[in-house]
């Protein structure tokens, strides 16, 4: 993708010397300055940059916290209180990291729903999408293990409940599930050993995410960005150089999002957490309602919607695994839901379903809540397995503009721009 050609010219002697040996400056310039971005991108396209920022911010605050945190069952809870009370700006580091995880997920969800709405997973972006799903899965593992580290009541019992899910495999091969669970725990119960290994992995996985993000960007820069029209960049006039156009817009989006982040960090640091996590872990006392962090609630609702434990676990994992097949499940020839009058409604119903499942996941598994959780679980899967293949085939899409330029300027001006470009 170099419609505009490289404008990179090393100015200093060192720059020229480097360019002939390791042209990293040229690479960065081509990929992040000259890189053609569609001229019609809206603010939803700024979330990729926001996510990159949050990954880096989480790593930085995490490294600082790791300097003070003590990963043992006896000391973990106290060390976090010491960070809050006695480490200089420790409360700030801890709140940035904990709220940062929530904001990371919020941004990821907006990013994923943007991809779903504008059909960013469709050919030739299947691999790009799949790497994105893998990043999401590793993010979830990282966040889950991170949540165990404060070693409060909710940390402890969330680890107990989630690791115990694997014991459902006992109903396939007797003893298999128990063996896996004991292997995960490093013993016969959730203990300090479990905390130690989760801490080790919590420190490792962010770097795995960083590697996957590199692949995600690589794939993106091979196929180019999708756009709100769902059309690819075809001519020079369809695109603008990434810098200063996309970068200036990304900066606005990022700072606007940071306002929300700061609001929670400084004024609502406990709001997204659970009060029970201010009680030190106690294996002898089970909290009345065990709930995961808000970003896992929809999956938790799906898990509990199904009466059989094994099938509940399968449904929960399938709800994420199904995303891997989205590029082939959607049979529509048109990418963007903007031109799909019927599909659009199903999309918004799906978005509503995810929020509803989140609400139901926060409630105790009582009759009315379980009933609605089942209804919404059915639609969750129907959206991928029935709506996507069928609506794509049934629906008559609206007429697409001939190009991004035409969508922006109108037909006549687009032709004029075409001529001028040639």
């Amino acid at each position, binding site marked *: 993708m170099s419609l505009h050609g490289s404008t990179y010219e090393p100015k200093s002697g060192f720059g020229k010397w480097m360019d002939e040996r390791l042209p990293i400056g040229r690479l960065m310039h081509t990929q992040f300055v000259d890189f053609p971005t569609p001229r019609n991108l809206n603010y939803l396209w700024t979330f990729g940059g926001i996510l990159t920022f949050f990954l880096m911010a989480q790593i930085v605050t995490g490294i600082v916290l790791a300097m003070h945190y003590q990963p043992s069952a006896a000391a973990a809870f106290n060390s976090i209180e010491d960070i809050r009370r006695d480490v200089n700006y420790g409360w700030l580091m801890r709140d940035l990291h904990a709220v940062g995880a929530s904001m990371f997920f919020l941004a990821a969800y907006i990013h994923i729903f943007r991809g779903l709405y504008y059909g960013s997973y469709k050919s030739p972006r299947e691999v790009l999408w799949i790497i994105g799903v893998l990043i999401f899965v590793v993010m979830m593992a990282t966040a889950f293990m991170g949540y165990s580290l404060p070693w409060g009541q909710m940390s402890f019992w969330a680890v107990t409940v989630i690791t115990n899910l694997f014991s459902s495999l006992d109903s396939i091969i007797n003893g298999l599930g128990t063996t896996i669970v004991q292997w995960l725990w490093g013993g016969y119960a959730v203990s300090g050993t479990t905390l130690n290994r989760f801490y080790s992995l919590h420190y490792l996985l962010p770097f795995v995410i960083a590697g996957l993000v590199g692949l995600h960007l690589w794939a993106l820069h091979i196929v180019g960005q999708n756009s709100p029209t769902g059309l690819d960049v075809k001519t020079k006039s369809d695109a603008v150089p990434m810098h200063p156009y996309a970068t200036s817009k990304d900066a*606005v989006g990022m700072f606007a999002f940071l306002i929300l982040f700061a609001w929670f960090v400084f004024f609502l640091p406990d709001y997204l957490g659970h009060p029970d996590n201010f009680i030190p872990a106690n294996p002898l006392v089970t909290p009345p309602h065990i709930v995961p962090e808000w970003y896992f609630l929809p999956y938790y609702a799906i898990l509990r919607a199904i009466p059989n434990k094994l099938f509940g676990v399968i449904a929960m994992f399938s709800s994420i695994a199904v995303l891997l097949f989205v590029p082939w499940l959607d049979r529509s020839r048109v990418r963007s839901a903007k031109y799909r009058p019927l599909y659009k409604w199903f999309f918004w119903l799906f978005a509503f379903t995810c929020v509803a499942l989140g609400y139901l996941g926060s409630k105790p598994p009582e009759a009315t809540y379980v009933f609605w959780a089942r209804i919404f679980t059915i639609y969750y899967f129907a959206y991928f397995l029935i709506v996507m293949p069928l609506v794509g085939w049934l629906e008559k899409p609206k007429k697409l503009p001939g190009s991004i330029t035409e969508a922006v300027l109108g037909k006549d001006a687009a032709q004029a721009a075409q001529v001028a470009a040639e």
Partner: protein
Amino acid sequence: MTRPEPAWRLAAAVLLAVVALGGAVRAEEAGKEETPARQQWSFAGFTGSYNQAQLQRGFQVFQQVCTACHSLKRVRFRNLAEPGGPDFPVEAVKALAASWPYQISGELDDEGHPIDRLPGLADPIIGPYKNDKEARAAQNGALPPDLSLIVRARTIESHASWYRQWINMVRDIVTARQDGGADYVYDLLTGFRDQPPAGVEMADGKYYNVTFPGHQISMPPPLSKDNVIEYQPNAGAKASFDQNVRDVTAFLAWAADPSLDARKKLGWQVLFYLVITTLLLYVAKKRIWARVKH
């Protein structure tokens, strides 16, 4: 393409938020008896901060009443003299520690014998019991919890209808209210009743409390209308049962979240910077994009 200008869309979003908030306030007024009571706290919301005089009164109540059974171990005596808290003079806190009724135990003297000693500024605010077992033995099997985090470790359960819970959520986020823990402690301390309702069988040594889960609590009513903790004339408030409860709850809220004042102050500085920078970046972006139609 005819697409609303970003500024218009932003305005629409703000308008939507205002309408939602207005609706939330009206819905709140309509359904007062359904939602659990929210108390007024000086430290609640995005403008909130601790009231130093209240924290000092609250400490007085804590010292005279709560310390009979409870510790406050995550708070150290020196914290009582720090800004953003009760902010007592250091000399007064030194004297307080030196006259504390309980001693630090378990340290060894030069011959290796365990000793007891008086706490100093750097020591935790200890309670009467050396360990949980001693506490349970003295308290008929019940464990008086350490109160350092009690306000953050509790909240009030909302019984509102599902749509009002969403409205409340928006309202709490917009007003930055996360003070369910203080509401709970207030409700608990004012929730004791002399007689349980008809038909409720009380276990031995339990007291009826409308707020406590299960309604049977081992703690006798620590404060009551008949036994008001009197304040100094210059303490800033007239002593009453309700005032005692509010003050001690505020003190425990500070004990659980001592960085609240510093946090909110820094928060305003950060928000000011972020809002100004966002506006400047937006203007810059407008000027850059003015070169191309989009």
